């Protein structure tokens, strides 16, 4: 069974009510459109429910819009639905029926679920069920996904249409005989007659409907999939011929449909005195001054919740995984396998789960913004600003979320309609200065700059990253992701109270998809990084550490041995790291990063930071033999950085190196989780790879300019 309808009809709420915990989220083949599926228990047995993305019509221009027609007609490997339930907004019946009649005219068994009946009643709108039933020849059930009204009747209506073992033939015959009391002008009918035999359809009525679909959808510049070239050529010829004779096909088809819909009043409405609640709210929310205040307040709460409120949960998750690692280490014999388990696997899973608080929070808030109708207002308010960047008004929330963390922000791009807008936003969001860059900035600034300059440098880094993100949006939007800009045509739906169960279900579906899909990539990367940083194991130590330990024991009177032993341990770790694959890699890339002012030790830190940017701090601690359990506030690491010298005695870390390093961190894709999230959302390794390459090149070039330019200027 398929669930179809316009956007903002409460279709998702109905899906939630029918399927509950059984819902799963997947993808339609070949496109980045989500496919939600679940099981509905009907009296006659369970049935699979597919939620088709909300649309105003089956006609399509892109392969993404084509998903609806594919899923309803069961084309291109999509399972063919036995029944289509059309979710119609009872307060917007005519426009909703425009979509519904395209399903009915194909002879596909359908049920109309008139949703939002509670709202319609409050507005004194009374749909005439008998008239609708007789004009469309389809069962009509008034429901309310919010209150649960009409669910049993809906189940009965769908059950009656589902073929049982013996009755399937009768069903099909009945449906085919359904009245289709509308007609198209002769020129359209002639075109249908010519095209119908060319399309691949199970029944004559469906061939007719598909011919109509092709007439409306196929265009010289469309991006549709799997339209046979013969059909395409014929459609274009027929359209051109009609045009020459003075008839526009689109006009003719759409106007005759609306003529049928408008011919007989389908609802009785008692006009309401005064302004509606939505209008009264919008008087404030869309007000030039108060509207902006409300907007900034809402975005402030959203940002604050991502940036700060999720912190305790993140801390708790880190503590639990740290504790689990210690526990495993204590219980298992020391060795490579234990290290793999603790540092690779437990650490890897931990670094995935640690994103959950932000993802859950963001999707919870997004769900509320979306379901209440406020998200459309956000897009309305900031569209002018975003248009200048070549982006859609809806891209604002993902961009803002990027300051907290790119991973949930990239997942939030799914609120954008077109693939081009989604990709552009995904390519730009990782340039926003996320919270993981903060420890690196803090360490570098505190170690190398006087306190009077620290505040301004920090602000400068945020301004710099925002500017670069906007610049990148401008450049990518005009070059690689040029494409057709989607015109903004966005419904401003009436305000509605969000339904908690729906918001929670949607939030959980997203989070689970992240855990399973991006999670595996992140865990695998963690294991690889662990391997690089800890192998090979059989290196020749640079010093005889056991002798040093013995020495420490011998001098037990003069120094407290515990401290001295920890020091020796750290030195031994540093020695191992320097000889590890990561250490060798650091040396190998030194010629590449030397022009940026970085030595090979920073190179090792950069490799370690790929796990997550803040790991740079602890990796540097390891490299310098201070130990890995340090933070950016650690004075010993700061002193170490400030006092580190090249072999010739000049300092490794000058203020210029510091700026160069921060610029590198601001621009580089030093975060495997971001890359994994882009790969999951774009369904393509190519875009994930492009993101990594372009950001790395950008970072390298910018640091080069900063460092070499700075040297020329005498810093």
């Amino acid at each position, binding site marked *: 069974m398929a669930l179809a309808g316009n956007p903002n009809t409460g279709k998702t709420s109905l899906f939630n009510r029918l399927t509950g915990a059984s819902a799963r989220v997947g993808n339609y083949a070949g496109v980045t459109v989500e496919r939600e599926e679940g099981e509905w228990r009907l009296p006659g047995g369970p049935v699979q429910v597919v939620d088709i993305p909300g649309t*105003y*019509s089956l*006609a399509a*221009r892109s392969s993404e819009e084509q998903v609806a027609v594919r899923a309803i007609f069961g084309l291109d490997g999509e399972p063919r639905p036995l029944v289509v339930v059309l979710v119609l907004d009872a*307060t*917007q019946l*005519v*426009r909703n029926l*425009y979509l519904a009649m395209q399903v009915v005219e194909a002879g596909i068994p359908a049920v109309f679920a008139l949703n939002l009946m509670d709202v319609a009643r409050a507005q004194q709108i009374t749909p005439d069920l008998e008239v609708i039933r007789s004009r469309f020849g389809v069962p009509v059930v008034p429901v309310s996904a919010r209150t649960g009204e009409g669910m049993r009747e809906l189940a009965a209506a769908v059950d009656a249409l589902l073929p049982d073992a013996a009755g399937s033939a009768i069903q099909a015959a009945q449906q085919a005989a359904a009245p289709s009391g509308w007609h198209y002008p002769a020129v359209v009918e002639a075109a249908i007659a010519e095209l119908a035999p060319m399309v691949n359809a199970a029944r004559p009525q469906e061939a007719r409907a598909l011919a109509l679909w092709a007439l*409306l959808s196929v*265009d010289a510049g*469309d991006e549709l999939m799997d339209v046979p070239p013969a059909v395409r050529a014929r459609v274009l010829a027929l359209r051109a011929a009609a045009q020459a004779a003075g008839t526009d096909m*689109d*006009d003719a088809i*759409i*106007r005759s449909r*609306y003529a049928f819909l408008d011919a007989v009043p389908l609802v009785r409405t008692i006009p309401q005195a005064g302004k509606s609640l939505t209008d009264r709210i*919008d008087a404030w929310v*869309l007000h*030039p001054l108060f*509207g*902006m205040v409300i907007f900034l307040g809402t975005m402030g709460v959203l940002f604050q919740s991502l940036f700060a409120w999720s912190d305790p949960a993140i801390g708790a998750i880190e503590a639990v995984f740290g504790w689990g690692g210690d526990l495993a280490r204590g219980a298992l014999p020391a060795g490579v396998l234990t290290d793999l388990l603790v540092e690779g696997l437990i650490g890897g899973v931990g670094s995935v789960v640690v994103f959950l608080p932000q993802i859950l929070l963001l999707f919870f808030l997004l769900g509320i913004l979306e379901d209440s109708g406020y998200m*459309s207002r956000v*897009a*309305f*308010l900031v*569209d*002018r*600003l975003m*248009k200048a960047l070549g982006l859609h008004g809806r891209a604002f929330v993902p961009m803002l979320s990027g300051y907290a963390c790119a991973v949930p922000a990239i997942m939030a791009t799914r609120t954008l309609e077109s693939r081009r807008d989604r990709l552009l936003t995904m390519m730009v969001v990782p340039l926003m200065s996320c919270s993981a860059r903060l420890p690196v900035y803090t360490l570098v600034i505190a170690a190398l700059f006087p306190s009077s300059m620290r505040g301004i440098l920090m602000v400068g880094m945020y301004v710099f990253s925002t500017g670069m993100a906007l610049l990148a949006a401008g450049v990518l939007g005009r070059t690689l992701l040029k494409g057709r800009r989607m*015109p*903004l*045509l*966005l*419904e*401003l*739906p009436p305000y509605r109270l969000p339904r908690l169960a729906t918001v929670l279900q949607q939030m959980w579906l997203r989070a689970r998809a992240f855990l399973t899909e991006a999670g595996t990539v992140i865990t695998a990367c963690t294991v690889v990084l662990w391997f690089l940083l800890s192998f090979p194991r059989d290196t020749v130590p640079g010093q005889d550490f056991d002798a040093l330990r013995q020495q420490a024991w011998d001098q037990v009177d003069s120094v407290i041995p515990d401290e001295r032993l920890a020091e020796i341990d750290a030195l031994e770790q540093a020695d191992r790291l320097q000889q590890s694959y990561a250490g060798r890699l650091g040396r190998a890339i030194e010629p590449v990063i030397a022009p940026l002012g970085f030595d090979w030790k920073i190179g090792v830190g950069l490799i370690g930071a790929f796990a997550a940017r803040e790991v740079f701090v602890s990796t540097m601690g390891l490299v310098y033999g201070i130990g890995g359990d340090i933070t950016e506030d650690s004075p010993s690491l700061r002193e170490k950085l400030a006092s580190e010298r090249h072999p010739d005695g000049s300092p490794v870390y000058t203020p210029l190196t510091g700026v160069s390093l921060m610029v590198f961190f601001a621009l580089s894709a030093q975060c495997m989780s971001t890359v994994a999230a882009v790969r999951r959302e774009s369904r393509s390794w190519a875009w994930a790879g492009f993101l990594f390459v372009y950001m790395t090149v950008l970072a390298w070039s910018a640091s080069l300019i900063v460092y070499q330019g700075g040297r020329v200027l005498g810093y």
Partner: protein
Amino acid sequence: MSLTLDLLPLSRPATIHSIGGERSFRRRLLELGFLPGVPVKIVGVAPMGDPLDVEIRGCRFSMRRAEAQAVVLSEAAAA
């Protein structure tokens, strides 16, 4: 010169005469019920002057000025 939707003063009711513009956007407008003879009204404007908040058939849409230019209005009803 016929009046187009982007030039319609706020809150003044008008009637659609025809829809122009690029085909796929035009088709979308038609499919949403932006048909000749249907009343239309601008009920709001975003803070920076764009986009417009357009009411049609009891439903509201946000539309950019550049695109509202495609909606041609009947002179008689606009007056």
